């Protein structure tokens, strides 16, 4: 890994390149909402061309070998743009694949997503699924953007396996989500699968943190838009942003955004530098819990601060709340992560 100065410069460049390709308005996002597959495969391929899916893949395997800090910085930028393309899922999958499947994922030619969750409120990846003897059996749910997946990495009691969407014994049902995307439920009835080596646990820690970073981008942008609105919208002959009660509320939201940023960025540093398992889990849990709660609070309050216009679907601000509603619980919600933090966080040294 390079020096701190080099890295922060790299992160700045990465953010800039992302900001350059993400439109400043949300017309593209609106057009994709409530349509299948919920994102644009062509756009995703362009993003892959920029190396985004390959971010965490070692250079030896054809990736760019960047750190968790870079991963989070990019996720945050995508959050700012409400980008629906399956970035976090693909990065997670890429870290578990090799060979031809990996190459296809990195090129954006195939979308492969992790399918690990069975219950709505759990971080358990094994569940009741088995992948022994080249046959997968079980049921995996809450797979974001599954409508656009070509294959899934399924976690079972006995390891990981790759399952093609169109294999015999695979059925996929799709439910729409509040952000205009979808969750897939994968039912595996003696489905053909290819065993994969490795363990999903570490990749999911990173995915949880990256989801927190994405939520940070969501709330940061929603808050910025709301500040703009407060400076221009007049009531009773004054900009509403001049009313002290609203000013103080805005100050409190700023504090939430700042705490989330501090928590997410510190967690990324820990994942990049420490191998202490309990410490790693505790910082991820802290950051994800904070990001989930703060994103809901900030986007909810942004609606309120927008007043009447905030509860129309025409106002973009509502898109941010709906995104937060979907992502808050992905890779574990706030209560789940608080519980894990309490269980694993190392005691203070005093």
């Amino acid at each position, binding site marked *: 890994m390079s020096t701190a100065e080099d890295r922060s410069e790299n992160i700045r460049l990465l953010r800039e390149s992302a900001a350059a390709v993400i439109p400043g308005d949300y017309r593209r996002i609106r057009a994709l909402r*409530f349509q299948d597959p919920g994102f644009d495969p062509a756009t995703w391929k362009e993003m892959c061309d920029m190396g985004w899916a390959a971010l965490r893949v070692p250079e030896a395997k054809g990736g760019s070998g960047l750190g968790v800090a870079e991963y989070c910085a990019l996720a945050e930028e995508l959050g700012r743009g409400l980008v629906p393309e399956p970035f976090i899922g693909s990065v997670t999958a890429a870290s578990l694949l090799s060979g031809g499947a990996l190459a296809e994922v990195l090129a954006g030619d195939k979308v492969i997503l992790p399918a690990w*969750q069975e*219950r*709505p*409120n*759990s971080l358990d990846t094994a569940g009741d699924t088995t992948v022994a003897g080249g046959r997968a059996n079980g049921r995996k*749910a*809450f797979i974001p953007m599954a409508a656009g997946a070509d294959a899934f990495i399924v976690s079972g009691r006995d390891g990981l396996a790759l399952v093609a969407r169109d294999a015999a014994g695979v059925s996929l049902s799709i*439910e*729409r*989500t*509040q*952000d205009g995307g979808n*969750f897939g439920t994968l039912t595996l009835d003696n489905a053909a699968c290819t065993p994969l080596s490795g363990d999903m646990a570490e990749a999911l820690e990173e995915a949880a943190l990256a989801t927190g970073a994405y939520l940070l981008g969501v709330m940061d942008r929603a808050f910025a838009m709301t500040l703009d609105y407060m400076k221009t919208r*007049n*009531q*009773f*002959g004054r900009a509403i942003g001049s*009313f002290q*009660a*609203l000013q103080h509320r805005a100050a409190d939201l700023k504090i939430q955004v700042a705490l989330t940023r501090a928590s997410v960025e510190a967690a990324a540093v820990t994942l990049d530098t420490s191998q202490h398992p309990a410490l790693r889990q505790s910082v991820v849990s802290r950051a994800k819990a904070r990001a989930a709660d703060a994103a*809901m609070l900030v986007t*909810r309050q942004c*609606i*309120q601060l927008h*007043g*009447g216009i*905030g*509860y*129309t*679907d*025409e106002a973009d601000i*509502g898109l941010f*709340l709906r995104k937060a*509603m*979907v*992502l*808050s*619980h*992905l890779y574990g*919600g*706030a*209560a*789940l992560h608080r519980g894990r933090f309490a269980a694993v966080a190392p005691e203070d040294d005093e």
Partner: protein
Amino acid sequence: MTVDLNDLDDETFRATVRDWVVANYPEELRNPPKRLHWRDNKVWYFKLAEKGWLCPGWPAEHGGMGLNAGKQIILLEEFERYGVARTNDHGIIMVGPLLIQYGTDAQRAEFLPKILAGEHIWCQGYSEPNAGSDLASLRTSAVSDGDDWVVNGQKIWTTLANDANWIFLLVRTDPGAKKQEGITFLLVPMDSPGITVRPIINIDLHDEFCEVFFDNVRVPKRWTVGEVNKGWTMAKNLLGFERIYLGSPKLSGYALSRLRMLAERMGTWEEPNFQDRFTRLRMEMDDLKALHATFVDIVRRGDALGPDVSMLKVIQTELFQKITDEMMDIAGANAGLLEPMEGNRNLHPSGQFIQARPSTIYGGSNEIQRNILAKNVLGLPG
């Protein structure tokens, strides 16, 4: 019949209402998650009309039930308890009382029977794009031209304007007057040339609200209500009694029962943490009920509600939101689903959460309510 109902003791009246509602209200319309359109609620509107129960507060001479305030509250409570949906009721609760108090005999004869018959469906043209919670600064203008007013401007947040064939409208008739002066009340047919209605899809993805545009709309002066330039006072007086509805604990009670169902389904019901939070919400609701009852008593006694009724709206709407926040917290990944879980309308955390959002904005935002409390109740300086 109306006299009979007022003479019943409260418990008998309550039982009478309850029995009739249970026997007559369509099961599939109970506790609808979204405001119903006329196409869905007219069945019930006509059933009420047929029974003579459409207008509880109107005097019998005008075709109402002529119920006293106490009985009206019981009727409302029983409707709420059974989850009866609001109809397109602006004619009943706004236009009727307006004309009865301020209209001419000719206006009453022209409009009241058509409300009772379900022939005129009214919507309310108050809010404007740049006068959300600041009604006094409205700008839609009416200029006198012979026997007509010529109306130009725009209304917004007009509930169910896409169902209505008439609108009652606040317009500015004296642009030189102080803010709250120079406002006049007009009745306008929605099919007047120059009116355009544009539904607004709200955050719940439902077209409950509309924008209504007025482009040189001619309105005969005989449809002016009360004195010209005195519309503000009339509008304010109409709001008085309505405010208590916004503070009804019913909505929170319903949400709390759905929270319990969700918790049971999610397996969190027995968790001590959840139990503690649920108990707090339940106690808050019971205290709100106790406070609400003190205001209902005032209405029952026939006294006027003071500005402190704003407290009810704040407590009720924020409790409602806290309950749906809690739903989102315990729902896990289900919190992201667009549709109800498992096709069960009662298990729809994201939907209920979204539906709770506007409550702190409409009916005078909670910020406005707190301004009212600070200034008009606590006497804090401007």
